[in-house]
């Protein structure tokens, strides 16, 4: 256990990087995911196509391949940002596809009569989405999105593979110096579990407050 105390600064900065990466990527993924889900149900055929292509492409390419492309290959075509931003953006773009699918599933759980009623009242497509469909759809998918949040947290570890010193990489570096794998890796695992536990707690609390009992 000493090793955890001794290298606290490393673990702390690794943990903070993981948390920052998780939160930034999650906020990005949630916003982009909502947009993509709307694209997939909107009345304009070409936009539905764009939504479908987005989801199909990003769900079927490994995140690590996307990270390698955005960090090592995109500079070749003159697109470059700093390492952390690029990684956060890539994870957000990747997870947005999964969140979009979850939200679309939520939209499908909203009874058809709801959107018909909205139309009958004369609401436009945008208005019916904003005031009628989305508030119900998003409440229905709190649990799935919570699961995706935990998966996203796990996926931020891949950033270690492209050179970001987040929790996994920090643990690995400390282990290379100290060679005490058991406390070090268990410590890192506990860090991830803590984030996942907070995520699960927030999801549960949100669900209790917001979910609609059908």
């Amino acid at each position, binding site marked *: 256990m000493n090793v955890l105390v001794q290298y606290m600064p490393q673990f702390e900065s690794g943990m903070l990087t993981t948390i920052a990466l998780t939160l930034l990527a999650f906020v990005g993924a949630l916003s982009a995911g909502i947009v993509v889900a709307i694209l997939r*149900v*909107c*009345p*304009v055929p*070409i*936009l539905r196509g*764009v939504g479908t292509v987005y989801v*199909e492409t990003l*769900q*079927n*390419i*490994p*995140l*690590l*391949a*996307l990270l*390698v*492309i955005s960090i*090592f*290959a*995109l500079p*070749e*075509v*003159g*697109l470059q940002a700093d390492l952390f931003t690029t990684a956060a953006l890539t994870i957000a773009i990747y997870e947005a596809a999964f969140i979009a699918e979850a939200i*679309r*599933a939520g*939209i*499908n759980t909203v009874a*058809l009569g709801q*959107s018909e009623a909205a*139309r009958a009242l004369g609401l436009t*497509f945008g208005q*019916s*989405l904003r005031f009628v*469909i989305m508030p119900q759809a998003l409440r229905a998918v709190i649990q799935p999105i919570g699961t995706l949040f*935990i998966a996203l*947290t*796990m*996926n*931020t*570890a*891949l950033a*270690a*593979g492209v050179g970001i010193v987040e929790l*996994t990489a920090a*643990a*690995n570096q400390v*282990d*290379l110096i100290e*060679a005490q*794998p*058991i406390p070090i*890796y268990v410590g*890192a*695992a506990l860090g*991830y*579990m803590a984030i*996942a*536990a907070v995520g699960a707690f927030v999801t549960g609390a949100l669900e209790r407050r917001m979910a609609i009992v059908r």
Partner: protein
Amino acid sequence: MSTDRLLFDTPGPRGRRRIKIATVISTVIVITVVAAGIRQFASNGQLDWNRWEPFTNVALLRYLFQGLIGTVQAAVVSIVFAMAGGIVLALGRMSSRRLLRWPAYAYVEIMRTIPALLLIYVMLFALPRYGFDLPVFWKLVIPLSVSSAASFAVIFRAGILSLEKGQGEAGLAIGLTYGQTMRYIVLPQAVRRLLPALISQSVGLLKDTSLGYIVSYNELLFSGQVVTSFTHRLIQTYIIVAVIYLIVNGSLSKVARTLEARQQKTPSGRPARVDPDAA
């Protein structure tokens, strides 16, 4: 397909006009974005033929194909282990014995919150120090199986629970043991129903084999990296690698969706035709 249920019915004249305008605007935007992307490539010289010419080399393509084989091997072995582990864990989780139920529960909950990469690092750097040094293939496959078994367990449990209780009860009533009931009655039906979910989880596992890039196991992404190190064509190589992933996983996902759509036609997920002898 029911998933394509739309939020609007047949639009009237005004709606049609709006859709037309929106179509024109979004087409222009899409074309602009694609053109900007192509320009970005062209202005950096990445569309020149000499940047792509190495990929007409048969030896190089064969090398990438070898990588794909490596990916498939790692994926298949991991899927077999993870599914077997998943079934055992799901059954353990539903066992009436506390001694089986709790460890299975703990395993699933813990593994879902530990990144596979952390397990890979343990295999890679920690275990060799205790004299546990395996070939690189297993350093990839074992952590992936250990970690995915938890996800498969969740799926199997959901599938078994979704089955009508009477199925298992009937099995027990005609004198089958618990094991026989599971083997001959419950699992075959659950697996059929779960097939789409199992396939998409397997696609996820296939994508995870790209972590071989980190352990230097010769799978698709890693062989892509090797190719870049002697062709110095990064963007081209990785685009080709991504397209290969897209084709392989896209076809698998397509199979999953087709199965799902077919199951929705037969509400309970049973086959549409019932064998009269079996009835």
